[in-house]
């Protein structure tokens, strides 16, 4: 079999994306395949990170002036701009900040292009602070639509919620914490792939898990000491990024990374799985990966959770109904109808029934447990 090149790429889009990529590199160290894409030549910095200038002819490297349309047009001028840089890439993790020009305008277009190339995409996008005003909030909301439409996994992180977790009112410290949270989440993927522990989470399993999952939520927690698992679980439960209400759809699956030193115990893993099951329901599917890194995590336990709701599937409810008006699916059926497995394939309809939904559910068969 041919050996493909490093198949994961971390891609920062816009000025915010550039900041996030550099923060992640500081958190992780070397060894990540990265790229920054921006309309502002200054984001290239001193060449420390591979950089691609978007819209060089149209914008002359001066940025968009906060105009998403300019970035969108710049990408449409040359959609194959990154194709060489994407050689061998099968999964792209994108980080960006919405509310501005390049991140808001170019990201949706790029995701469309990546989709046509068959590349799985996971995006972490921050949403502006409330105090930044309605205009930026609306711009972010407008940008979020095409992103959610075209990404396999999209995680939107309101900056207000990110900094609220910092426990400080100091702006510098709060922003640093927010950046650290995103960096921790993204770093998970490289750590679990590059330094797998006893439960291996390889690139193919990651792809299979993430493909067409829809909108996700994520949070991290770190603790040490004899009760570190309880502290981690309590921290996750209290995290605003995972906050749930009665109207929230049930959680369908959780991607969990457990990062620890050589002292990680089986009973701790068991407690984490049981704790998450208790918190999110017995039907939740938990995909677990571990990292055993004594140098980085000696004595500490870090958990990063990426949570997908059943309705994430229904992130595109209109799509599910396209061309098949006969049967209106509701509740659990509707959630399962596009559970990711068959979401991107042509639906199979017979006598107005969606055959992609498990038969036992459509027949309401009771199962022994």
């Amino acid at each position, binding site marked *: *079999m*041919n050996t*493909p090149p490093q198949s994961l790429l971390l891609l920062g889009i816009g000025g915010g994306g550039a900041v996030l990529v550099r923060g992640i590199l500081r958190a992780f160290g070397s060894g990540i395949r990265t790229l920054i894409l921006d309309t502002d030549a200054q984001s290239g910095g001193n060449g420390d990170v591979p950089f691609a200038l978007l819209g060089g002819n149209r914008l002359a490297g001066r940025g968009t002036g906060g105009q998403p349309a300019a970035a969108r047009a710049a990408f449409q001028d040359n959609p194959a701009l990154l194709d060489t840089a994407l050689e061998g890439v*099968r999964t792209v993790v994108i980080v960006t900040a919405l509310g501005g020009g390049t991140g808001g305008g170019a990201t949706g277009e790029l995701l469309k292009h990546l989709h046509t*190339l*068959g*590349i*799985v995409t996971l995006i972490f996008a921050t949403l502006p602070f409330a105090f930044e005003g309605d205009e930026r909030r609306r711009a972010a909301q407008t940008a979020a639509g095409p992103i959610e439409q075209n990404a396999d996994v999209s995680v939107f992180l309101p900056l207000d919620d990110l900094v609220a977790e910092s426990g400080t009112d100091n702006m510098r410290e709060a922003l640093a914490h927010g950046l650290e949270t995103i960096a921790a989440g993204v770093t998970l993927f490289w750590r679990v792939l590059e330094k797998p522990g*006893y*439960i291996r989470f390889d690139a*193919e399993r990651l*792809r*299979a898990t993430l493909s067409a999952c829809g909108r996700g939520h994520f949070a991290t927690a770190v603790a040490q000491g004899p009760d570190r698992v309880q502290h981690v679980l309590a921290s996750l439960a209290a995290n605003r990024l995972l906050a749930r209400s009665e109207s929230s759809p049930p959680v369908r699956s959780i991607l969990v990374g457990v990062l620890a030193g050589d002292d990680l115990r*089986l*009973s701790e*893993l*068991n407690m984490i*799985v049981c704790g998450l099951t208790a918190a999110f329901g*017995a*039907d*939740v*599917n938990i*995909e*677990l990966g571990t990292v055993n890194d004594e140098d980085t995590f000696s004595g500490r336990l870090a958990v990063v959770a990426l949570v997908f709701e059943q309705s994430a599937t229904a992130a595109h409810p209109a799509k599910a109904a396209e061309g098949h008006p006969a049967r209106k699916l509701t509740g659990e059926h509707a959630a*399962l109808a596009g*559970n990711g*497995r*068959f979401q*991107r*394939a*042509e*639906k*199979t309809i*017979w006598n107005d029934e969606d*055959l*992609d939904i*498990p*038969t*036992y*559910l459509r*027949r309401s*068969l009771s*199962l*022994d*447990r």
Partner: protein
Amino acid sequence: MSLSAPVAGLEIGTSRTVIAIGEASSDGNLSVTAFGSIPSSGVRKSQILEMTQARYSIESVLKKLEEQFGYTIGHASLAVSGPQVRTTSMNTQWQLERGFVHEDDIAEINARAEETNLPPERTLLELYPIAYGLDELGSIASPKGLNGNLLKLRSLCIHGATQRINDARAAAEAAKLEIVQPCFAGTCAANAVLTPQDRREGTLVIDLGGGSTTYTAWADGHLVYAGVLGVGGDHVTNDIHTAFAISRDQSEQIKMTSASALVAAEDGTIRVPVPSPMPGFKAASISRRALNTVVNARMQELFTIIRSKIDDENLLHRLNGGIVLTGGGAALPNVVQLANAVFGCGARLGAIVPEVQGLDKVTNVPPFACATIVGLLLRAATIESKPSFMDSFTGIFKGFFKK
């Protein structure tokens, strides 16, 4: 006995990507000389969703064939399946000038049928004559010499979505493999397991694939009905995954090792262990009755849908040769018994026709699960070597395949 140049077949399935190579001999036999497969990814319902993965899969199988069997191939026939394949019944007419049916008239009406204009988004895969008619007479197998004025031909047109076929072609070409001929997977599977006698007696071949199920009905020696349903073994795995909240890997493993198409009385007392992600985790298990209830519901529904389609065509009474099951899904325990119960006639696993040899020397995969790729090789040999090779598989309709 001389061997012709090797022919190759490519099947990009939902579960596996397979390439096989065969060599036809002058006595009408085919020797399978190489077989390579790897699990597919990025394919759903037999359709490519991720081009890069499909290309890698094909490249990997090609590499395997080269390393394991010493073959380097540049072109292959392609098995086309999935719900994008459709069948259309067509009627063609030809005015007789001589007052009786001359063999030139038969050739002419066949040629006219082949000139069918499909819209550009559809690609003709195969065209099969079902029956001739003459004036008020219908269902004539061989009209040559009969008196009349208007010759009619009813034929079955099998066509696929041009874009989907082009996706597969592009993936193959990116892996430096040229596609010479797209063929319908359903008739390929039937080619591999039906004898001329089976076709005469009337047989339904159901190929249970990973992403879709194809079916072809044969009667009086020729194809009379065909179709594809976008439901396959992948759905069974997904149903288990959904029912018991276990991973897809675990669900697939349980399906392969513990599931049954029928629910037995004793299942209620048996627990099926769920493979653990690692030692030390609390042991888990699921009810065997629940597992088989989930699997049975899906498989029974699948067969019932096909049965209803066969009933709509009023074909069941013509299937005296029974039901033949092929494809990876046919390995599910008790699936033959379930088919027997749903269709009410004898069902069996497909056995590769005696004209094909050597399959067991190149793969451990059960023969019935290789039917599509073997049938594709037979088709490829028909196309690439000599016309007479087709005779054993297509009877009186030789020369009627779309080239």
